């Protein structure tokens, strides 16, 4: 049985029957066992490629949960905006939070990023295509990699387009006189979009690493893990952007 991943959910640990009480009784008429009975349930403590993938995915999930909290805290500055203001000489409260209108190019950037999410997911699924992976595992070339690589390259290109679009958006705002230091809204806007862009830039690095890994890593499961981790990171960055975009465009 090749050490591959499957798309089916598999148990990672047998249910513990515990101790005390009645012993487990197999009530099946034939008593079970034999043939392809339980061919995909795995004993607890198993350490195979699927378990390796699960470990990396858990690590990505935990790290991304922390990153989500990080972005949530940055966004919290947005939610105290009613308090950002000053008292005028006439003893009235004047808000300093000037609402901004989002440059239309942000819509295009969002579309590009969502498209890149689709291409990324396609690349990921191509690399998990079971028949091709079995051929790779058997050493019969790299069909899965050859299917996935173009989609990954497309994702990288779209990511670079997104960053370029963000840069254009900042430049457009600068031409309107809306700089980083203009007012609290601009502080917030440039900080969150800048942080997100920095994360995306790192994500591009991760994608390029995954691309190289697909051709350089010698174990098929590590190639899959590299691309899978890159994909989940990319999806998370896309999701965070959707939240930020909705906040900036619709909740000023």
């Amino acid at each position, binding site marked *: 049985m090749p050490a591959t991943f499957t798309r089916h959910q598999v148990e990672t640990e047998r249910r513990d029957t515990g101790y005390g009480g009645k012993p487990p009784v197999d009530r099946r008429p034939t008593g079970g066992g034999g043939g392809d009975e339980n061919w995909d349930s795995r004993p607890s403590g198993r350490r195979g490629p699927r378990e390796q993938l699960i470990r990396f995915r*858990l690590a990505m999930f935990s790290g991304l949960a*922390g990153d989500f*909290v*990080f972005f949530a*805290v*940055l966004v*919290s500055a947005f939610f105290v905006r009613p308090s950002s203001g000053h008292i005028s000489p006439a003893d009235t409260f004047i808000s300093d939070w000037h609402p901004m209108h989002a440059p239309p190019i942000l819509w295009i950037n969002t579309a590009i990023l969502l498209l890149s999410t689709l291409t990324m997911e396609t690349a990921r699924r191509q690399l998990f295509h079971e028949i091709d992976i079995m051929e790779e595992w058997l050493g019969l070339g790299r069909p899965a990699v050859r299917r996935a690589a173009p989609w990954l390259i497309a994702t990288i290109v779209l990511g670079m387009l997104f960053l370029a679009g963000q840069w254009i958006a900042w430049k457009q705002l600068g031409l309107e006189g809306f700089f*980083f230091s203009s007012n609290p809204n601009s502080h917030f806007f440039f900080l969150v979009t800048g942080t997100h862009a920095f994360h995306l830039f790192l994500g591009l690095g991760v994608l390029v690493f995954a691309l190289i890994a697909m051709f350089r890593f010698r174990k098929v499961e590590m190639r899959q893990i590299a691309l899978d981790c890159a994909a989940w990171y990319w999806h998370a960055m896309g999701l965070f952007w959707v939240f930020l975009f909705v906040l900036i465009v619709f909740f000023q």
Partner: protein
Amino acid sequence: MSFLRRRVFTTNHRQLAILYLLLGLAAVITGTLLSLLIRLHRTWPALALPFYGVLKPEDYLALVTMHGTLMVFFVLTIVPQSAFPNLVLPAQIGATRMAFPRLNAVAFWIALASFLTLLSAFFVPEGAPISGWTSYPPFSALSAAGPGQGAGMDLWLVAITLFCLAAVAGSVNFLVTILTLRCQGMSFRRLPLTVWSWLVSSGLTVIAFSALLAAAAMLLADRHLGTSFFLPSGEVLNGIVQRPGSGSPMLWLHLFWFFGHPEVYISILPGMGLASSLLANFTRRSVPAYGLMVASTLLIGVLGLGVWGHHMFVSGMNPYAGTAFGLTTIAIAVPSSAEVLTWLAMLFRGRLQVTTPLLFTMGFVSFFISGGLTGPILAQPALDAYLHNTFFVVAHFHLVMAMAGVFSVFAGIYYWYPLLTGRRMNEMLGQIHFWISLVAAYGTFFPMHLAGLAGEPRHYAQLSGPVAHFANLIPVERGITWSAFLLAAAQIVFLINLFWSARHGSHVDGNPWRATTLEWSPIVHPIVRSGAYVYGPNTAPGQDFLPQWSTNEPTVRSS
């Protein structure tokens, strides 16, 4: 080169544990020296230090800031939550390695870089920051606000940023290890309570330290990028109005304490898990309500995310929010009390084997109770209105966090010493260390309750001089100082014991404490058939415990 790779750039978790312990030792020595300087200055303000002179008030505040930062982060987070898991976590779940050894190693090196960055704040021209370990803006956001608030504060922020990264990296590793590398038969219900506590603490670390990272980034932006997330409008410094203003210092308080409160649970939960384990071991009893203890650990972790406002009752926060936070804080006393009552139940009916680890565990329980009982007092907004920023608060957190935390660290070191060295630490020196430390710790921190009730504020550099309201407390301060020096001196006994026993301690066999948990297992890949705390007369032939690596099925129903 191979020395570097083997000893220094190792990915072996046991060796990383030793490196973390050494880091913690360096931090606690530095932090203790700072605290002794604090005590000296409070008692004899005119004392001139050799090579330095008389401490000015800003120097005193720098001492307080760095003492707090070093102790909270580099002693009370590093040792229980980074050093001890690296030492025994894989073994306790029956694994041979961590899930991500290189990430684990990277976490240590970032933590070390953080420590060195923090210490370097002492050596920049204006010295260390003086805004407290909580670094409230606008004071901490303005470089010109005071000595040490320039380069010193920036170094402090960089150190904290690095520490956040190290903490999250390490915790991701622990989370994945606990969830996926348990050996065959090690179900969640059979996990030792130490592993449960590391699981919850790691989850809290990922959430809390990510929040601190973002807050620190925003503060750095305020300081250097001209933003004003935390700078209010109309802020005047040295006659100059600070622009742009229109931020909110309250935002920092919320963000910092959203981190700060889970941080103290991250520090104390491993100690609580260890206390349960050691009490089971040395009373030869199982943990009476294992499921309840697990539930309490989880509840403390989850509820701990919802109580941060109790640090902010008098900050100008909405009073109704104060009521809400007061309620959640009282709620968290419920699982904590459940744990304490379970420990007391184990002590009352157990056959105590009075060893040094047990003594320090009982000291832990003692400090947890005495420090914890003042928690519900401070949790009432009405009472906190008086007690906030007095020495009552200082007494509370030093007893429940510093002393209890440190006593659980000592218990762990005395307990796991045979695992590392094959020898026991000297029992007589251990008992001397324990008794002097216990008495001196209470002598140091208990009188602070009375000083706080008398109204003595925190952060005053001296009680005599121009402000003389509290001059009648100076004898109390003197007594506290003597106790503090005694406490520090008692630790020398511990250090002597630690290093002497490595060479001359009595040899012991593989399981000197006759424990059930897997770090003492002679089998490398055990199959677990029983719970973590099967102690009692009928558990196994010829002995009063059933280890988790045993090939026998358990005959009694216990966990």
